[in-house]
């Protein structure tokens, strides 16, 4: 009896630390945010209340769904671009590079940029895409353009380029894990049955790597959804995203209640994406045993 009690106590102690952490740093802040979202803005700050005014504003004023749609569009584009770049790269790493040493070096080369400041990496793109930047200088020098063009920087294109570059590792990591797990015997079996490499890829490799694709897409979409640095650094007049608007509510507008309501809506959207992707991943899971 004493033995079991002690074991239970130990178990509780082990579990309670992370539980406390989650409670203090996740649930309580979300609860505070949720509470604020029903408060009312009143000069000079705001007053406690239980009103749905902030949510009504978000529904009735077109600027919020315009920005949400734009954010979703950019997030999806970034996810697709990341996939198009990361899949061939990871495929090459896992199946074509024979030396394990070389493979891990190349893999690290993809991951290492994550250790460089995000701000610095985003800033670099300004010097590449700008009016007097590397790309424009090259195009003018090589005679392709007669004068520098504005179309590379300060628009949604430059935001997608920057965000894709920054979030590609988050696509590579889960893809690498799921491609590496595919038993080579499956691919060999497909070959033995006389199926060509393209059809093997389409019917065997790609379906088996879907969990990695879904995880990577979830990462890139959710990370882009909350980004406000890219709009700030490389976005143009049409660059404002939902996080930019939330930031201005907490800052310039001094309207924390509306900012909190927007944050709650964003949280719901992101949680929905995560639970949908979780379901997709489960539905697509193939038992290899």
């Amino acid at each position, binding site marked *: 009896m004493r033995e079991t009690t002690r074991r239970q106590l130990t178990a509780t102690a082990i579990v309670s630390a992370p539980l406390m952490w989650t409670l203090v740093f996740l649930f309580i802040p979300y609860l505070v945010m949720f509470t604020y979202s029903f408060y009312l*803005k*009143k*000069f*000079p*700050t705001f007053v406690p209340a239980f009103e749905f005014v902030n949510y009504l504003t978000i529904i009735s*004023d*077109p*600027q*919020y769904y*315009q*920005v949400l749609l*734009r954010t979703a569009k950019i997030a999806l584009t970034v996810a697709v671009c990341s996939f198009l770049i990361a899949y061939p790269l990871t495929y090459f790493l896992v199946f074509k590079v024979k030396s394990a040493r070389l493979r891990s070096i190349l893999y690290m080369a993809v991951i290492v940029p994550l250790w460089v400041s995000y701000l610095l990496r985003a800033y670099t793109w*300004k010097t590449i895409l*700008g*009016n*007097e*930047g590397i790309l424009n200088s090259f195009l003018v020098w090589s005679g392709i353009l007669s004068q520098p063009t*504005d179309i590379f*920087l*300060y628009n949604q294109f430059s935001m997608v380029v920057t965000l894709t570059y920054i979030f590609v590792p988050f696509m590579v990591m889960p893809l690498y894990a799921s491609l590496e797990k595919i038993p080579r015997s499956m691919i060999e079996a497909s070959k033995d049955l006389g199926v060509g490499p393209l059809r093997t890829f389409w019917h065997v490799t790609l379906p088996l790597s879907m969990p990695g694709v879904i995880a990577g897409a979830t990462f890139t979409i959710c990370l882009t959804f909350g980004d406000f640095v890219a709009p*700030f650094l490389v976005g*143009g*007049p*049409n*660059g*404002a995203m939902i996080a*930019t*608007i939330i930031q*201005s*509510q*907490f*800052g*310039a*507008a*001094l*309207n924390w209640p*509306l900012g909190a309501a927007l944050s709650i809506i964003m949280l719901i959207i992101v949680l929905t994406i995560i639970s949908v992707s979780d379901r997709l991943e489960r539905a697509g899971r193939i038992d290899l045993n």
Partner: protein
Amino acid sequence: MKNLRKVLQSAGAVLAVMGMATAAQAAGEVNILTWEGYADDSFIKPFEEATGCKVSATYVGSNDDFAPKLAAGGGVYDLVSPSIDSTKALIEAGFIDPADMSRLPRYEEIYEKFRTAEGINHDGKVYGVPFSWGSIPFMYRTDKFETPPTSLNILWDPALEGKISLWDDKSAIYVASRVIGNHNIYDLSDEELEAAKAKLIEQKPLVRKYWATAGELVDLYAAGEVWISNTWGGYQSALLAEQNIPVQEFIPEEGAEGWMDSWLIVKGTPNEDCVYEFINMATTEEGQCGMSNVNGYSSANPVAAKNCMSEEQFKALHQDDVDYLDSLLLWTNLRDRLEHYTNTWNAVKAAN
């Protein structure tokens, strides 16, 4: 057990000594939350040596940073220096103590327009000591314009597509409203805000980038991205001159906004003596010319400025010209209209 008690006793002694040490330091320090150039070593170092008050400065990036930092509480700061459109909210929220005028012997030397500003006077008491001021003029690349621009209408000229920038701030609404002809820029009705919004959305295809920080605007000019924009008078143009980028500031026909920063005393500061020492230094010769030399802004105390500036600098900073100061539309707190202005500006940025 005995050992434990000993350990606890010595730990207590150490804590007590540490406590005394912080108390001793607290007697001679002042913690300020301010703009970067307002605590420059050139005039802070001599002040520290003369008074023994140690100055610790924390910097803000925008006027929006003051309220959240003070709302978080905790007696971290003794002095703050927000602009005149942000002071009233801090005062009415109860973050600020009124100034003891008997300890500010040279207050009367400050421009009357500032001393009587609604933003620092509340319930018959003075809550802020004016420090610096300037305008929000426009600036252009002199090598890109054959005839110097004089009107804000040029910001809607399709010939300048992709070469225009505006401050990413409610200030854009002030600009558009003046172009439309609504000069009551701090008191716009909902319809007038809608009109400004439509005007700014019309301009969007011509805009290269809305600039957010002083450094960003300098980069935009230096990289050849932008030829015309509004600016913080005297500041970015000086930084660009250092890089040999030819720019010229101008006050458009439609007028310009003016700003003024003041020192406000945070409620319940334990460092009152050093706080008043600091304000008196800042608003007289040492601090006024120190600030003007570092930032290129005008001084709020023209008497002190006259004593410590060269004649050219005094003129260049418009210290001799009260009409210039009067012509500026001095920033005003928008009170409960602020959120409408900000949302209008957000709607412009949200529009496709």
